[in-house]
């Protein structure tokens, strides 16, 4: 078997996926009540829509999308801060592309850029350090958004800027950590989550062990799952098997990429640069200990400390139901703005912006 087959083609094999779907239907016949399985990973959201996974499942096995898209959970106030920073002509704002269209209270970075602000899209955060090196007379501010997958990469850029002795690089950090919101949603009786498809990429860093307290405390089965269609189907099979055995433990379906311990080097760099902090999640509110703040030793690279931005309180669009979509309480199609006033070209809410957003995936691939 070649590597390409082993790591990709086999996991997209249609007949394999269909066999697994038949198996899931057989297993589901033995359920005493319908089950709700939640995924909390933007890549899963995309994959589930792209491959039409929901259409392969019986009615009593429901998939719900949770807060797995980092751009989507970034609060409006953060976008306002980014926009305020970009107003300074001596500042270059560097960002991953999907932050550009996210609406702030009055505008987006895209609109600001059209108005002349210097906002650059980078593929890697290290590109932002290179920009700082090339433009010593200007400040480069990087928008640090993402979960445990992205945070270590941002940490590397701060270490690199320190090594190069750069005084003009800083990060506006809004990193979030994953198990916390799952913990909050697990206790929500309205959602009644019976199992988690735990994120693929985040888990390569934090490892399967990170979900053990959640599985034990809330008696919810957790399966760390890959994002190819056969992976997702197997993750669902494993959750169903646990449900039928009345078990609630952590299993790793995505074993080829995820270990129980995770990536120790990434974890160490993350801990070196960041410390846990309370963080505001769009839709979920302030969650204690769910964010990552840059440690005091690295304050010179922390945009919050360097700029001391004081901005007015954010204004949320009250018609936007992203908050309910992020909690899994509403499907995109339940929102009256979906595909009417809110589209990927002209998004009202963050879930329509990022390619990993539930609404963007639903818009692109349909039901």
């Amino acid at each position: 078997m070649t590597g390409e087959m082993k790591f990709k083609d086999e996991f997209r094999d249609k007949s394999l996926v269909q066999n697994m779907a038949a198996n899931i239907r057989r297993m589901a016949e033995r359920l005493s009540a319908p089950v709700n399985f939640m995924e909390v990973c933007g890549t899963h959201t995309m994959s589930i829509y792209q491959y039409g996974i929901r259409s392969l499942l019986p009615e009593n096995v429901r998939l719900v999308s949770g807060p797995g898209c980092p751009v989507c959970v970034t609060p409006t106030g953060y976008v306002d801060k980014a926009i305020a920073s970009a107003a300074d002509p001596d500042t270059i704002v560097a960002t991953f592309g999907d932050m550009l269209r996210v609406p702030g209270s009055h505008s987006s970075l895209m609109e600001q850029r059209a108005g002349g602000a210097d906002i650059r899209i980078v593929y890697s955060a290290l590109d932002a350090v290179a920009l700082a090196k090339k433009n010593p007379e200007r400040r480069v501010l990087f928008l640090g958004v993402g979960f445990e997958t992205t945070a270590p990469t941002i940490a590397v850029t701060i270490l690199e800027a320190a090594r190069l002795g750069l005084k003009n690089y800083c990060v506006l950090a809004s990193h979030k950590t994953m198990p916390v919101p799952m913990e909050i949603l697990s206790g929500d009786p309205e959602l009644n989550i019976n199992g988690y498809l735990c994120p693929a990429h985040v888990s390569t860093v934090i490892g399967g062990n990170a979900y053990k307290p959640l599985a034990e405390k809330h008696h919810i089965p957790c399966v760390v799952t890959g994002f190819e269609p056969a992976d997702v189907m197997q993750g669902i099979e494993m959750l169903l098997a646990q449900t039928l055995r009345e078990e609630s433990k952590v299993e790793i379906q995505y074993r080829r990429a995820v270990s129980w311990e995770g990536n120790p080097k990434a974890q160490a760099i993350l801990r070196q640069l960041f410390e846990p902090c309370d963080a505001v999640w769009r839709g979920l509110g302030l969650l204690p200990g769910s964010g990552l703040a840059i440690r005091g030793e690295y304050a010179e690279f922390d945009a919050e400390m360097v700029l001391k931005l004081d901005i007015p309180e954010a204004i949320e669009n009250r018609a936007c139901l992203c908050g309910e979509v992020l909690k899994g309480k509403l499907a995109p199609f339940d929102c009256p703005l979906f595909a009417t006033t809110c589209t990927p070209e002209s998004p009202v809410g963050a879930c329509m912006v990022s390619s990993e957003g539930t609404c963007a995936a639903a818009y692109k691939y349909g039901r």
Partner: protein
Amino acid sequence: MKVVSRDGDTVIAEVDGVQREANITLLEENIDIGDYLIIHAGFAISKLDEEYAEETIRLMREVFSEEDMA
């Protein structure tokens, strides 16, 4: 993505004919040409394990047995 070349902490990795540069400082493992990596925002975050990939496919091809569901 498959590693096609390496220069210090930087590799070129390829999938479907598309090549990307990636930084490997976040990986503990030694990385060689021909290894498969998961790349996120310009950084390799995990090296794929061939044995586990084969094992997963084998399990997928097996239908869950009655004991699994009991």
